[in-house]
């Protein structure tokens, strides 16, 4: 029996890897043109809640137009990291950062950064669908209106375009004036995606977007992510490793605030470099 340096059975590892390849092998994907530049760059970037260092000295480039998923056990800092990118953590008292987090080369936490403009370029979809208690139309038009679009015809175009992009148009086109809270959970979440797309962001952050949805609605969101891939830089936090392998091109694995491994998804799931990653994706801990 062959043993690795740290005393594990190599044949067993090979077995596991083969099994994982069967589970996680990504399907055929469309080619992405013009992407692949560093879009969000972290340099020795740490996030603190008061004294507690929730995300520890991350160094990583997220590439434009690709889908990057962030996985890791609960409390590992993956959501914190995601929310740091559009500064949603500002809402939490006592949260501060060190190091640098760059968006298109500009420091997100710079002294002169306008977080409002930043958030316009970096849209976000949250764990629980959170449409406003307004009509479907007003939900989508909320962002464009904020940024000065008042012409009803123009707004109608934006609403239709966004809803089409979010694959929701066919389901709601006849009831745009109804309250959005009347939609099903899956529809609400796609509405939230459409709402985020309506302000034409460059990056779309998805914070466990399917954790509150049933499998059917989850599949629709995943299809939607595939549709949007190539047009937007997408980062998705997920608890579901199959989902990460299905939708993403790159995967980050966080453990206790440390970015343990960051690699192309196929590689991370079938040939992890780090033992911790391997233990996690093979389900030895969660």
């Amino acid at each position, binding site marked *: 029996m062959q043993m690795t340096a740290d005393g594990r059975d190599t044949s067993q590892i090979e077995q596991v890897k083969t099994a994982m390849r069967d589970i996680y092998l990504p399907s055929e994907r469309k080619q992405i043109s013009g992407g692949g530049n560093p879009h969000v760059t972290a340099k020795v970037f740490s996030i603190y809640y008061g004294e507690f260092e929730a995300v520890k000295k991350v160094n990583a480039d997220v590439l434009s137009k690709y889908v990057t998923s962030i996985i890791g056990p609960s409390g590992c800092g993956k959501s914190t990291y995601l929310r740091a990118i559009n500064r949603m953590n500002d809402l939490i008292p006592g949260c501060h950062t060190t190091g640098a987090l760059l968006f298109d080369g500009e420091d997100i936490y710079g002294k002169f950064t306008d977080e409002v403009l930043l958030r316009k370029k970096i849209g*976000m979809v949250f764990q629980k669908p959170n449409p406003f208690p307004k009509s479907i139309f007003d939900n989508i038009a909320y962002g464009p209106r904020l940024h000065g679009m008042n012409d009803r015809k123009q707004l109608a175009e934006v609403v239709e375009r966004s809803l089409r992009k979010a694959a929701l148009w066919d389901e709601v086109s006849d009831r745009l004036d109804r309250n959005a809270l009347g939609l099903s959970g899956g529809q609400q979440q796609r509405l939230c995606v459409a709402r985020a797309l309506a302000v034409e962001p460059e990056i779309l952050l998805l914070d466990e977007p399917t954790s509150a949805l049933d499998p059917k609605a989850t599949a629709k969101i995943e299809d939607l992510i595939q549709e949007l891939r190539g047009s937007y830089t997408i980062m998705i936090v997920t608890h579901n490793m199959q989902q990460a392998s299905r939708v993403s091109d790159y995967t980050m694995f966080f453990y206790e605030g440390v970015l343990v491994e960051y690699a192309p998804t196929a590689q991370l799931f079938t040939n992890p470099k780090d033992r911790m990653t391997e233990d996690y994706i093979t389900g030895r801990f969660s």
Partner: protein
Amino acid sequence: MNLGTRKILDRSFSAVGIGSIAVMGIALLIVIVPIVYNGLGAVFFTETIEHRNMLYNEFGKGDKAELDKENAAAGIYRKEAYSMLSRFEAEMETMEPVRQQEFRSKYGPVQTALRHLIGPLPGDEEAILTRYRYGQTRWEKAEEKLHELLYEAKWDYSDPNSMAKEYFVSRAAEFEGTSLVRLFPYVENNLDKMLQPRFTVYWGFLTDSSVDSHIFGGVWPEIQGTFFLAVGAMLFAFPLGVIAAIYFTEYARDGFFTSMLRSANSTLAGVPSIVFGLFGLAFFINTLKVSESKSVLAGSLTLAIMILPTIIRAAEEAILSVPKTYKEASLSLGSTKWNTIMTVILPAALPGILTGGVISLGRAAGETAPIIFTAAVSVGSAIGIADVLSSPTPALSWNIYNLASEHEAAAEIRHVQYGMVLALVSIVLLLNLSAILLRARISKKLKG
């Protein structure tokens, strides 16, 4: 604890709960039923021709031709009574002096009682106070006054160890053997013809001003004053309160200063209203001199200070109950904090904020103590909207107190007092009801 004991405890608690609610309900009924019954009596009652005459003379209401006809009809019977009086007066002249003296002293009260009943007698000088220019305007009061005409009240002091007892002596017996003896049965039998009673609905009680300190007329000045004071208080307190609540929930950082502000706010909510009244006098009138003396403005400001803590608290709670996810969603779309507050948080918090506002409005309308020194007068006419800066006003709450405690003829006009109470209760109830409806409507709109 075993199952049996638990069940018994649960049941006995339910019984106690239902019992206390029932006690509350009964108490409420005991209070509300007389208020509603007597209060409605200010509007729905049987009026006499004296009421119609008063309305015509004081307010120009009514049909002159018909009134003349009715007065003529009543006049036939009145003339008969008056002629009995003059016949007796002539008879008295012929009496021997001692007897004449005795009857004169008994005759005066008869005249007075008749004046109270059907108005001034022929040959009386026109009274200065309006109340003496008319007889009884309400039929049930006339029936009471009839008793005063028919019987003389006397006091029995014979037992020194107990309180004096009132007893009645028939005036018919006192005037036995004179021509006046016919007057009493005549008035008793023909009172309805002299006063022409008729059931009426006097909406003027709500829209007329009062005549001779509420002896006649309505309570419009009071209703309007209450409205001005309450709305004025809201104009100051509502924006301030909502702004303060936004500051507390969205801008203030947790710290010593904020917690001081919060506890100051809570303390303010518990201060007795009379203290606010004195504060209003000392601060707004004596120090700031917002007006020369009492004015609607000073009263509104005082009431505003009084209801401010409630509004702040209600608005704060309403804002805090807006799901955080709305705020996150709005901010993530590139909205500024201010925009998020205005377009997402406030609309979602609106039902709660409005409920707090309307309940405070009701409280401002009902409070007496804060306006005693700052705004209220007991008698006055309705003021114009332009006078709110400088004029005091009558107000329902204060006038209810005044009628109950200080009015010289309070017993004669209980119906006015009840009418005011009912008006005030209705206004407050309507405000609260509208708050509930408004809340339900907005919540329904928000929920879709």
